[in-house]
């Protein structure tokens, strides 16, 4: 399991398929998506804390 790619593919925040992410996204694109997902997770966590 390639968690690096599957995390983005499994996220409801992105609609690209696993195949599209594997073939049409660069490593930089996936890294950027991780940063975005990290940010959303942090925001969700802070909202739940309130």
């Amino acid at each position, binding site marked *: 399991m390639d968690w*690096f*790619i599957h995390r983005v593919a499994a996220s409801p925040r*992105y*609609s690209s398929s696993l195949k599209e*992410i594997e073939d*049409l996204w660069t*490593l930089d*694109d*996936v890294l950027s998506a991780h940063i975005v997902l990290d940010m959303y997770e942090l925001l969700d966590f802070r909202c739940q804390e309130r």
Partner: protein
Amino acid sequence: MGYSVLMPTSLPTQEVTIGGVQFRLTALGSKKGTRVLTRLLNLAGPSVEALAGQDERAVMSALGSLFARLSPGDLEFFDSEFGETTEIMREHGYVRLAKLSPLDRDALWAANFGDMFSWLKSCIDLNFASFLAGVGDIARPASPAKTSAQSP
């Protein structure tokens, strides 16, 4: 829910001229990119930080020592992976490097290993420059905070 603005539909390309031959490089997709980067990092080992340095000479030096350690299998691996995403200009337009006949490949690289390494370096730059720059930030120790002199 989807954010189409963040969804790439094509891979970036870059044109370079090496040894008088025009190359068009296309970035690897993330799956292949991950595989190639993993192999590269395994090979580079401690020189990863130098690879990630801002100094072009340091990068070339690190790549030079990396290439010196390449086994025939490593070379074949990188040649095969990057060859699939590299095209070279011929009389009738671009031709994929991986599709060249063994004779044409020999004519391109034989006695031109410097050009071959320049091509590999260009491929690495296109695919991993941002990542390596990030590694550089991580690998370089943070500069110590300035402290004012204190008397005992």
